């Protein structure tokens, strides 16, 4: 099976955010870059599927050259080869123009099964996998927590409000991974050593048959006009009293302040 997994490099979730001088991006100095947590589930599922059904896994990312290290992590986890979409023209992309470029990679390589994380933490768009599915014209299973492959039929469970639903579709298809799908493996030393020798190809918009104005900021449908720190939340009253008194205070608060009792 020809499997493809798309990943994004994002700031570590512990990162303290500082707004850059342009007022619409973050200061990138000193940030610890990681594979977006949901993408780890996607990588794991891709590698597991290969281990069960045979085939090859290609891991793909769009980003600056530092994103190479995210790809090497995926290779160390068991992916076989990597593609990096790296070009100044890709910068400033939104979900739409990202999907536009990634869809071309799929059209070029015709994978049977494609994985995404359900969202890249940071911009938290929750869109790219589904956008690509629509652009390529195939089915998708979103925020998948359990996956079954039976010939060319795949079924995935997803959480809905108050329950679960099972979505069925045919290969080729896209699955976006949610926490619960699996336990991602840690890359071990042997994997990391092997990853260094695995092939990593770089592609530009031209390689994908796209004009520079279709990708990145030029091809985006939405644009950040500003980025601000949220107003600091004010800590309110803090009490250290007997449990019975505390209980009374909470009830008073629910009644008089929050007005929910």
């Amino acid at each position, binding site marked *: 099976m020809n499997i493809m997994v798309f990943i994004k490099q994002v700031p570590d*979730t512990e990162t303290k*955010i500082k707004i850059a001088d342009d007022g*619409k991006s973050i200061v990138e100095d000193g940030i610890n870059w990681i594979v977006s*947590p*949901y993408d780890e589930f996607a990588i794991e599922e891709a590698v597991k599927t290969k281990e069960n059904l045979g085939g090859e896994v290609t891991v793909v990312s769009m980003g600056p050259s530092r994103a190479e290290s995210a790809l090497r992590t995926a290779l160390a986890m068991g992916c076989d080869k990597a593609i990096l979409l790296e070009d100044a023209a890709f910068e400033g992309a939104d979900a*739409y123009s990202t*999907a536009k470029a990634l869809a071309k990679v799929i059209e070029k390589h015709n994978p049977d099964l494609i994985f995404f994380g359900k969202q890249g*933490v*940071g*911009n*938290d*768009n*929750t*869109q*790219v*996998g*589904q*956008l690509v599915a*629509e*652009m390529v014209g195939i*089915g*998708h299973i*979103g*925020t998948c927590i359990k996956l079954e492959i039976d010939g060319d039929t795949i*079924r995935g469970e997803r959480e809905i*409000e*108050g*329950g*679960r*639903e*099972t979505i*069925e*579709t*045919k290969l080729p298809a896209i699955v976006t991974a949610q926490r619960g799908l699996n336990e991602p493996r840690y890359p071990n030393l042997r994997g990391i050593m092997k990853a260094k020798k695995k092939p990593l190809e770089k592609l530009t918009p031209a390689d994908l048959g796209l004009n520079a104005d279709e990708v990145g900021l030029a091809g*985006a*449908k*939405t*644009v*950040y*006009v500003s*980025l*601000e*720190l*949220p107003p600091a*939340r004010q*800590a*309110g*009253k*803090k*009490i250290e009293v007997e*449990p019975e008194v*505390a*209980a009374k205070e*909470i*009830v008073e*608060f*629910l*009644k008089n302040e*929050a007005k*929910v009792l």
Partner: protein
Amino acid sequence: MILVFADQRDGNLKKASKEAISEGKRLGSALSLPLGVVVLGKGAGSVVDEIKKYGADKVFVSETPDAYSPDLYAEGVAKVAKENGAKIVVFPGTSMCVDFAPRVSAKLEAGLVTDITATEVKDGKLIVRKPVYSGKAIATVEFKSDIAMVTLRPNVFELAESEGAGEVVEFSVEGEAKAKAVKVEMKEAGKVELTEATIIVSGGRGVKGPEYFQNELQQLADLLGAAVGASRAAVDAGWIDHSHQVGQTGKVVSPKVYMAFGISGAIQHLAGMGTSQYIIAVNKDPDAPIFNVASLGVVADLFKVVPALIEEIKKAKA
């Protein structure tokens, strides 16, 4: 036209859908555009009257397809949007809409901003705000496409009933579903849904085991008509199902009151509940970071406070 998609399953209109229709109406007033609401799938017909209460000028109804299909639902909404010249398409941020709204955006070649918490109309254009980096920053976003699409964070936008022409237009969604729901299992029917709850009673590692979730915290939640939430530590320990997890890798919630019992307040947890209107925290560690955001902080042993609180609420309700 402002077009709102109303998420319903088997004739149950989600509260988040009513919020989306209310917001659609407000945008319609600001831009002098009529409000259309589209509702699809089994049970669609039975929610039309409820939709009308929130000021719909037109309600586009289709009982097809009979099961949820991301591609067919997208087909249906895109068709209505195109035929009626929709300028803005609004979705509630439900699990269904988060799943298929991007497909509509691809079909309409329209920008989509998800999980928004505020809107503004400036020079006849929609500008929206959304929390990013787990709520550590707020982005203001503009659209470069002719059509603007958004999904709304549930429980943030106010409900408002109003008047509208209320014309009903039936249509059908045709085509073959590439993907579709073949099974739906409701596990917690009748329980308050986390993302829609007004009050959330949440437990963390301090709760020390599954029993406390099932007994005391559930009892407290039932008394308050609240939903039960949890930190990742409690979920990872296997004390409660992942569907209850609040935070960056769990659910994002915006209740009126969030009650945190034995939760330290890690950044990834705050990411999921930082937009709660009021936060009440009970923690025995006076330096727990949750106290930095708590409207009411109680430094105490939760195992002593919760039973007392249950008694106090019973008294208050008697």
